[in-house]
C-alpha cells in the first residue's frame, strides 16, 4: 500500500511524541541496570549512590519493554533482559526484582513489546502502588518518553 503524505505527517508527529524533549535529552544522565544497586541480597536491595543522587533528575536508561497490560498505555515495565514469563514454572507475579516502571508523559501505543528501547524522563524512587493496576514499584521514570534503541 502506498504511503500518503498525510500518513507520513501523522507518523512524524507520533514519533515526535515518543522522543524525549531536547532539554531532557541534553542533560539526562545515563543509567544502566548493572549500576542501579549497591547491594542485592536475600534480605533486600540497596540503591546505588548514583541512583540516590539522581532522584528527581533527568535520566535515560535502555532496556526491554515487558509485554504491556494494554496496547496503549502511559505505563510499562522496563527490564534488563527480554522477558519470557513461564505461566506454570513461575507465577505471573514473578517479575525480576531489578525492574524499572515507566510512566510516559502521555498514553502512547506500546508497539515495541520485546524490543530494546531507550527511555528518558525524571527518576523517581521509593515505594509506589500504581492506582490502576496495583503494581508495586520502587524505581520509576516519570514524565517519560521512549524510542527504539
Amino acid at each position, binding site marked *: 500500500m502506498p504511503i500518503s503524505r498525510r500518513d507520513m505527517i501523522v507518523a512524524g508527529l507520533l514519533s515526535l511524541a515518543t522522543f524525549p524533549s531536547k532539554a531532557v535529552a541534553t542533560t539526562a544522565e545515563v543509567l544502566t541496570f548493572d549500576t542501579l544497586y549497591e547491594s542485592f541480597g536475600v*534480605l*533486600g536491595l540497596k540503591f546505588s549512590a548514583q541512583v540516590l543522587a539522581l532522584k528527581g533528575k533527568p535520566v535515560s536508561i535502555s532496556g526491554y519493554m515487558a509485554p504491556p497490560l494494554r496496547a496503549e498505555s502511559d505505563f510499562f515495565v522496563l527490564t534488563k533482559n*527480554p522477558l*519470557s514469563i513461564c505461566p506454570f514454572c513461575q*507465577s505471573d*507475579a514473578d517479575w525480576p*526484582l531489578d525492574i524499572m516502571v515507566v510512566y510516559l508523559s502521555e498514553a502512547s501505543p506500546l*508497539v515495541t513489546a520485546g524490543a530494546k528501547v531507550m527511555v528518558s524522563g525524571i527518576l523517581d524512587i521509593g*515505594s509506589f502502588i500504581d492506582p490502576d493496576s496495583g503494581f508495586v514499584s520502587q524505581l520509576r521514570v516519570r514524565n517519560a518518553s521512549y524510542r527504539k534503541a
Partner: protein
Amino acid sequence: MKLSTSLIASLIGLGLAVPASAQVIYPLNRAEILAGSKFDLKVEFPVVVGRDKVSVTLNGVDAVKALGGTLEFVDKEDGQDASSYLLRNVTIEKAGSYSLEVKAGDVSSKVNWTVFDTPKGKIAKNVILFIGDGMSVAQRTAARMLSKGIEEGKYKGDLAMDDMPYMALVSTSGSDSVVTDSANSMSAYTSGHKTCVNALGVYCSRAKSNLDHPRVETISELVKRKQGLSVGVVTNSEIEDATPAGMVSHTRKRADYNDIVRMFYDVKPDIIMGGGSPNFLPKATLGSKRTDEDNYIEKFKSEGYSFVSTATEMRAASQGGATKILGLFSTGNVDGAYDQKFKKGTTGKFPDQPDLAEQTKIAIDALSKNEKGFVLMVESSRIDKYAHSLDWERSVYDTILLDNAVQVAKDYAAKHGDTLVIVVADHTHMVGIIGTYNDDLPGTTPREHLETYQNSKFPDYKPDANGYPETVDLKRRLAFSFGSYPDHCFDAKPHLDGEFAPAAAGPVKGTYVANETYCTPGSVKVVGNLPTDANSGVHSADDVILTAMGPGSEMFHGRLDNTFVFRAMTTALGLAKN
C-alpha cells in the same frame, strides 16, 4: 454436559428432573480419605434452594450428625443465584465405604468415598519423599549415562534412585485435565486427593476467593497434629513454588506467594530451605514482594528458627545444634547444579548457595533429633524448569543433583531401617534420547550432525567426584530431544554461559517468537508446535516412575494413581491411629 442455571430453573419449574451432575459434591466421587484426616464437605447447588428443602446424608444418616461440625448454609454464594452447603474440618474415623447423598426437591446426587485405615500401625518412623520435578525417563537415563558412564551397552553403575527394591508407574492426571501441573500433582502426594491445575490442598469449587475452596489436610499438618513429628521442606526453587508449597498450603492459586508464606508460618515445618526471600520481607524493604508490612523472617526467628542465607551460615546453624532452620538462599530460585559448578546463573549475586545433597544431610541431622520421627520432602525443582526452557544439560545436572541427595537419604536409611524413602517425579516432559550429535560430520545444521541407531556411539562424558561431567561441550554428545516447544532457534549445542531462553515476547501481545539471540549461523529456526502464547515446553501426561525402599515401600508396585503415594506414606506412618 453443561446446563445453564436458567435452564435448570426452567426444568425445575416444569417439574422435570435435573441431571445429577447439576449438583457438585466435594470431596469428589471415588475420593480415598484417610480415616481421621480433616476435610471440608461442600455441596454446590445450581440454583437457590431453601435450607429446609435440602437433605444431605452420609450412609443414610444426616451429614451434620454423622460428620459433626457446624453447618454453613449459604443461600447465595458470592452473590450468585446458587446455594451451597458447607461442613468444614470434619473427619470420618471409621474405615469403610461411604455414600454421600444429596437431595434438593426432586434433584439428587450421590458420591461414593473410600475411607481407609492404616491397619499395620506405625511401621515407619520417618518418611523421606524426593520429588524430581518434571523428571521423565529420559532425564534419568541421561543422568545415569553422564554420571556413571556406559560401555558396550552396560552402565558402569546405577543411580542411587535406581537401586531400590520397589518400583511403580504413577499416573498424574488431575481431576480437571489430562495434563497436570506441579501444584495439582504435589497436592495429590500430600493430601491423597486429586484436584485441578494450580490448586494446592483444596478442591476447585466455584468459590470466588482463592482461599475459600473446600480444604483437605496435608501430610505436614497430619503428622504434626497426630504424632508430633518434625517436618522438613527443602527445595532449590523459590520456597513458595508449587511443590514445596504443597506441603503446607490451601489455595486455589499457586501464584499466591504471600498467602503461601503465611501458610508456612501457620504449619511451621521445622526445616524450611529454598529461595524466594522477597515474599518474606516487609513491603517497606527494597526488593520486597509483599503487600503488607509483615516481616516473616523476624516472625520465624521469634519462633526459635535460625535464619540462614548462605551455605556457610547453614553449616554453622547445623553445627550449633539448630533443630529449626529457615534458609532462604536467593531472591529467586537457587541456581541449579550446572550453574553452581561453572559459576554461572546468579552465582555472582549469590556466591555461597547450598547444594541439595548437603541440605538433605543437614535437614536429616536436625529433624532426626525428634525421637518421634520426621517427614522430609526434598525437591530438585529445576529438572522441570530447565526442561521448560529446553535446556537438557541443566535438567540432567539437576537430576544428578537429586540423585546425590537420594544417596544421602539412603546412607541414613542404611543405619535407620525404620525410614521409608520414596523417589518420584510429579509429572513428565515430552523428552527422549534419539542418538548423538557429532560435530565432525560434514555440514553445519543439527540434522546433518545427528547420528541415529548404529551410528550413535557412546559419548565420553567425564564425571567429577559428584557425578557432574567436567564439560558437556563434547564433539560427540547426546541428542536429547524435546517434543513440545515454542518457536526457537536450535543449534544442538549446549548453552554454556546461561540457561537457554528459547522464545521472547513477540510483537503481537501475548505471543512469543524465537529468541533472536540464538539465531546464529549453524542454527535452524524451528516452528513451534505449541500455541503461540507458549514461551517454553509444556508438561506431558505420561506416567512417572517411582522407586522406594524401607518399611511400607512394598506397597509400591504396578500402576498407581498419584494419590496412592499419600496412602502409602500415611499407611507406613500408621496415621489413622492417634
